[in-house]
């Protein structure tokens, strides 16, 4: 009984999960339903709900290489699009889907789409006359990628030939684009030849580009199709009325294809290309092997072969033949006492590599340049081969003075021993890696001189501006002085002694008005205030200024007494008039 209950509890979630699982449909959409082999086409997987669905795997279909390309983020809200790139490799009609997968307890099922791959045949004689809408440029200009090898070894050179066939002479501005692939070195197509052939009664100009690739590690490499972009231009009629030069009688078709402009850009892609790279056999690898793969020749020369002690001998190591010269390294030279070999300079071209190096003879005992062995892997024979050159005998001129040599040897030994001795004190011991220049605080110090320069420029500009605008300068200066005057006057409010307060008020107002109207401050009195009316000052403000001045005269030169409230009121009045006058421009 207990067993049954446990089993029921265990299976219950599974039963329920199946009963609640939903079947959700999603759509597969092809960019085009018909493509030629070697071209690529995009496939979209469109999900109705923008859920967190992982990228579904499209089942393998022979003849098609389907790979996830990207997710469409710009699709309308609520729709999730995964886009796949399909490289078509053979003819036929391919059925894609239904694609099924489970996600989050639901089952997703797609529709089925059909992709038709049809070969573009070379136009038969007489077909070249097709015009107008039926003119298919890919039947007239097409690409052929060719390589003699698809199974190679690591570092083995794989020659690649790209041929552009065109039944039209004026094809220009050809640009190649090829996506890089990790650990696969692909050289640029730069070796170009031009031929003309006739096929099926049609003349073709064939532009042939040669390059090569090689892989640094073993594995299966799928090369992305190479995109070739070029312009098909209209025939330029030669001067003198002679007929235009063309390959075939198809000017009219091309004129219609190119349309209004002088040329039309066309983009074609090659077929995908795969290469299988095998590892080099390890057990029998010679010690002197440095990565050269091919069928090479090897030579070594030395010049001069008769030298004095201390002179240098030039050694030239040349490697020729066929193979990948990019990976040919300098063969190792065995160390010989008394002969110091320096770093070589290498010169590489497509079919050879040479190393020029110097060896300094440091001893009379040196009798030869040692033998050098160059090992390489021959991919055709699938075996390692080694070529040894040398030793090259050399003659050291002059009789060695054995006694002198012995003394020099002693001296050398003494030098070796007598390097400058130890530091007896440890010096300032500090924490390692305390590099203050790496601190941000230190780097921020660099800002200060820049700030100084900026400040000087700003001040200079300000000074120039103020000298060009005396009215504004007077306003600033007078307003600043007035602020100090107001503070000073406020401090001097004292009911017992009103004279200092009114004296300060008078000075403040006099200096302010003098500064603003650019007349000497001492000349500003209640009597001359009418002069200020020419600055279009509000009469009410002027009246209040006059009142303040009158109060000041009264307080300073009569025995009248003033209360604290009266002094406070004068202060308020002065604040008001200065505020009002600050808003006004005093233009002469």
């Amino acid at each position, binding site marked *: 009984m207990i067993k049954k209950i446990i089993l029921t509890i265990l299976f219950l979630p599974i039963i329920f999960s199946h009963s609640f699982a939903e079947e959700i449909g999603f759509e597969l959409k092809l960019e085009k339903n018909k493509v030629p082999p070697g071209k690529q086409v995009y496939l979209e997987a469109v999900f109705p709900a923008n859920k967190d669905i992982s990228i579904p795997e499209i089942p393998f279909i022979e003849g098609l290489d389907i790979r996830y390309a990207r997710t469409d983020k710009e699709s309308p809200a609520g729709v999730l699009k995964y886009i796949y790139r399909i490289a078509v490799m053979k003819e036929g009609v391919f059925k894609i889907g239904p694609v099924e997968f489970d996600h989050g307890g639901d089952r997703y099922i797609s529709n089925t789409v059909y992709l038709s791959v049809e070969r573009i045949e070379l136009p038969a004689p007489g077909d070249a006359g097709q015009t107008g809408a039926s003119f298919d440029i890919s039947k007239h200009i097409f690409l052929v990628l060719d390589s003699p090898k698809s199974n190679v070894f*690591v570092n083995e050179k794989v020659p690649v030939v790209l041929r552009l066939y065109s039944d039209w002479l004026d094809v220009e501005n050809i640009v190649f684009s090829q996506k890089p692939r990790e650990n696969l070195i692909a050289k640029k197509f730069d070796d170009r030849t031009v031929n003309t052939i006739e096929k099926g009664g049609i003349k073709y100009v064939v532009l042939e580009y040669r390059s090569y690739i090689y892989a640094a590690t073993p594995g299966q490499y799928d090369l992305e199709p190479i995109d070739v972009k070029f312009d098909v231009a209209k025939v330029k009629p030669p001067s003198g009325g002679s007929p235009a030069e063309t390959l075939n009688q198809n000017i009219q078709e091309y004129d219609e294809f190119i349309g209004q402009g002088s040329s039309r850009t066309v983009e074609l892609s090659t077929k995908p290309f795969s290469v299988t790279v095998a590892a080099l056999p390890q057990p029998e690898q010679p010690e002197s092997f440095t990565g050269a793969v091919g069928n090479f020749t090897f030579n070594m020369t030395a010049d001069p072969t008769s030298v004095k002690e201390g002179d240098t001998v030039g050694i030239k190591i040349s490697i020729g033949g066929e193979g990948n010269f990019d990976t040919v390294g300098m063969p190792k030279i065995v160390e010989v006492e008394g002969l110091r070999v320096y*770093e070589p300079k290498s010169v590489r071209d497509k079919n050879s590599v040479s190393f020029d190096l110097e060896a300094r003879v440091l001893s009379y005992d040196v009798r030869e340049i040692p033998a050098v062995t160059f090992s390489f892997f021959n991919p055709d024979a699938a075996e390692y081969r080694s070529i040894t050159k040398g030793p090259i005998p050399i003659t050291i001129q002059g009789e060695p003075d054995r006694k002198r040599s012995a003394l020099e040897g002693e001296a050398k030994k003494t030098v070796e021993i007598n390097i400058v001795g*130890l*530091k007896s004190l440890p010096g300032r011991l500090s924490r390692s890696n305390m590099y203050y220049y790496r601190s941000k605080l230190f780097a921020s110090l660099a800002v200060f*001189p820049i700030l100084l320069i900026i400040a*000087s420029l700003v001040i200079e500009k300000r000074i120039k501006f103020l000298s060009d605008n005396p009215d504004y300068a007077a306003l600033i200066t007078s307003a600043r002085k007035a602020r100090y005057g107001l503070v000073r006057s406020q401090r001097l409010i004292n009911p017992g002694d009103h004279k200092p307060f009114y004296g300060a008020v008078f000075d403040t107002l006099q200096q302010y008005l003098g500064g603003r109207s650019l007349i000497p401050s001492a000349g500003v009195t209640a009597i001359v205030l009418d002069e200020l009316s020419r600055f279009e000052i509000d009469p009410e403000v002027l009246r209040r200024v006059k009142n303040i001045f009158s109060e000041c005269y009264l307080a300073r030169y009569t025995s009248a007494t003033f209360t604290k409230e009266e002094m406070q009121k004068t202060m308020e009045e002065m604040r008001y008039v200065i505020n009002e006058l600050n808003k006004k421009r005093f233009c002469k």
Partner: protein
Amino acid sequence: MLSTSLIKKDFVNKIMPLARLSMILCLFLFCCGAAAADERSALEDEFYKANSYYEAGNYKDAIGLYETILASGISSPNLHYNLGNSYLESGQIGSAILHYRKAIFYMPRDSGLRTNYKYALSMMKQRDPNISMHSLLRIVNGLFDMMTIGESYLLFGLLYLAFALLFAASRFVPRYRLAVDILAVFFFVILVLTILPLSNKINDLDREGVIISQIADAKIAPLDDAASGFPMYEGMRAYILKKMEFGWVKIKRPDGKIGWIKDKDIKAVCE
């Protein structure tokens, strides 16, 4: 009288906790200082002991002791110099050059250090490739080679400040503006001339490494079976461009050649 004593008592009550705290802090700082002094003294003892090993020709033990001091996170130019000497005497040219390079950053004008460093270079199987350089740049570089990083920064900072001050001053002395401007331009030219050697020096300090193995095979890719690019011999300098987690280091030789070597073959001058 009573009120005075109450005030005093109140004052003492207020002050006492602060005084206690200050005393504890002083005691703590004193203890820290004493501990640091003790540690320093112990390291100094190790240093003298290592020196005596060296003098006795026991270079292996001397290296061990010097390296122990370095492993504690403490270093000094003299320590690197002595370690360089020990490595040189024991025939490890690469490690000797590495420690001389470290010492040179702190005491570039030390004649003993220069002599031993030159001697270590002469012992190299293969010297660093020569780089062609404009003679003016060579002179300025040579000048900076004779200065520590701090002195180089000080010179640069002074030139920079002098230029900024002169530039600022020329705005406000219209009468002497031309003369001040000429002086500012002069300082600016010198400033520009010092930028490259200074950046080279910082670059050296940040990225320079020295080959410590007898020979390191620089490969074209970080793979054991990748083709060999060029050999690097013991003591040769290289810039460390990238360190991979799986034991490969991307290096650049002073002449621009780039390759991958194992991280055990190279050590950074400033780790």
